[in-house]
């Protein structure tokens, strides 16, 4: 099986661009990734575009802007894992020998909804009864606090940490640090989650050029290797489930570690799906970064802050960098690739050699989440 390398990455700073068309939001990321890759546009053999609300033929619309028409283009919707799922499809295509060079795009324009919580599928039973994403995460938080004694202050520390990281990232939507008191005093959204413990709504795009490792060094001297590319779907149950265990991520983590032949102690830097503060704590455990119930202590010790034992979300994560859902997974990959190349300046994780990106989501009845895609990279 052919190994896969990342040649070029690009993204536009996440933020609010209500006046921009989706295509105009995305093409600067595409152009940046292609230019950085060293690949001639005519050498790109396939394209994959992840978006949830971008509409019909998003990939073709974007690629037409930059003259990349006529190549097989696949549009992928998988909730918050859309563009990481698109990335995985490109990895599969290259591994199989179907193509040598592929382009992946992630894009989303959430400002078109005018604000409020993420629109969910109204045909879903729980959504029809009033479920919204902050409520789902708040219930996880409530139960976790009950079972493990996590405090409101420990929960809020996730936001303080990630907003601090985001202040160092010029691609982040939220660039101001916040204090613990500010997080706790921000307006209630879904108890115990306050506003600053919820990812902002915004727009954004990211793009990656990847290729067969066989040809990678023709284009760059420092390609980053894809060591694991994993996708899991949630297991449905109408019965009881422990909401403090994100089962879809637990299974995905196990598969990804096995594929990459690494374990949690080998990870130098991770971008995990912190859509809400509690999520990051659950994922520390799911990835084996700490023992069960140990997430709060990890935050108290500063283990996952820049300069700590295992920096998590150095980009600022979804809480600070932002969460234009179809672009999120690929933007995490952009950050990990830049970290492994040592290009992250003030937020650089010193000596990072192995990095992990994790995007999961999809609020539907009977699932922990609908989809989860995990990638492990190494240099």
């Amino acid at each position, binding site marked *: 099986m052919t190994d896969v390398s990342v040649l070029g990455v690009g993204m536009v700073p996440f933020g609010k661009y209500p006046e921009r068309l989706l295509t105009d939001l995305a093409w600067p990321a595409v152009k940046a990734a292609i230019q950085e890759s060293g690949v001639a546009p005519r050498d790109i053999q396939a394209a994959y575009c992840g978006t949830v609300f971008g509409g019909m033929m998003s990939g073709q619309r974007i690629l037409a802007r930059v003259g990349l028409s006529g190549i097989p283009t696949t549009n992928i919707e998988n909730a918050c894992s859309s563009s990481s799922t698109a990335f995985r499809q490109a990895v599969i295509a290259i591994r199989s020998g179907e193509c040598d060079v592929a382009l992946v795009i992630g894009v989303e324009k959430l400002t078109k909804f005018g604000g*409020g*919580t993420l629109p969910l599928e109204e045909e879903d*039973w*729980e959504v*029809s*009864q*009033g*479920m*919204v994403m*902050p*409520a789902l995460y*708040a*219930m*996880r938080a*409530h*139960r976790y606090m*009950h079972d493990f004694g996590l405090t409101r202050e420990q929960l809020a520390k996730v936001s303080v940490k990630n907003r601090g990281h985001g202040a160092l990232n010029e691609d982040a939507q939220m660039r101001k640090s916040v204090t613990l008191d500010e997080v706790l005093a921000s*307006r*209630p*959204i*879904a*108890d*115990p*989650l306050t506003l600053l413990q919820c990812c902002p709504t915004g727009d954004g795009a990211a793009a990656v050029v990847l290729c067969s490792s066989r040809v990678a060094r023709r284009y760059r001297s420092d390609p980053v290797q894809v060591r694991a590319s994993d996708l899991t779907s949630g297991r*449905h149950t*109408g*019965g*009881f*489930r422990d*909401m403090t265990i994100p089962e879809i991520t637990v299974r995905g983590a196990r598969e990804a570690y096995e594929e990459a032949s690494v374990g949690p102690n080998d990870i130098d830097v991770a971008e995990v799906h912190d859509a809400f503060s509690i999520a990051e704590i659950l994922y520390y455990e799911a990835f084996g970064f700490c023992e069960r119930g140990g997430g709060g202590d990890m935050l108290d010790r500063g283990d996952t802050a820049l300069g700590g034992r295992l920096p998590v979300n150095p980009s600022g994560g979804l809480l600070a960098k932002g969460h234009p859902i179809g672009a999120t997974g690929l933007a995490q990959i952009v950050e990990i690739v830049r970290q492994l190349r040592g290009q992250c300046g003030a937020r650089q994780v010193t000596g990072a050699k192995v990095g992990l990106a994790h995007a999961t989501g999809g609020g539907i*009845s009977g699932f922990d989440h609908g989809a989860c895609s995990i990638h492990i990279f190494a240099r």
Partner: protein
Amino acid sequence: MAIAPILLSDGALDIQDDGPVLIGVRCTSCGTVAFPRSSICSSCMSETLVDEPMPSCGNLYSWTSVHVGSPRMNKPITIGYVDLQNGVRVFSHLVARNRALEVDQPVELSVAIVGRTEEGNPIQTFVFVPAERRQ
């Protein structure tokens, strides 16, 4: 003039003389019980399902008060997951009735107005409330 309430949980809630009851299904082939109703068994694909009344008591697995979401709902809306005695978990609105809601608290089925449509019609649905007696 009273305006007829809109039932949010149409098809899942039966309001009988002696109180409300949630109606799910039981698969006659493999015995799986599910809520709400479905036309196919999610365990064995059998389409031979019969109506199954759900127990009206359970324990509150987790809950939250939500200040965002549909403008039709009263704010904050209080919602949670109730674990029923037959092994089914139900997503439900909650009414605390001046009592503090707690994780693992026994709760029982009731009916309440939880919001209002754009036209002003009350939105009614099933809710769980703290149980009067310890079970």
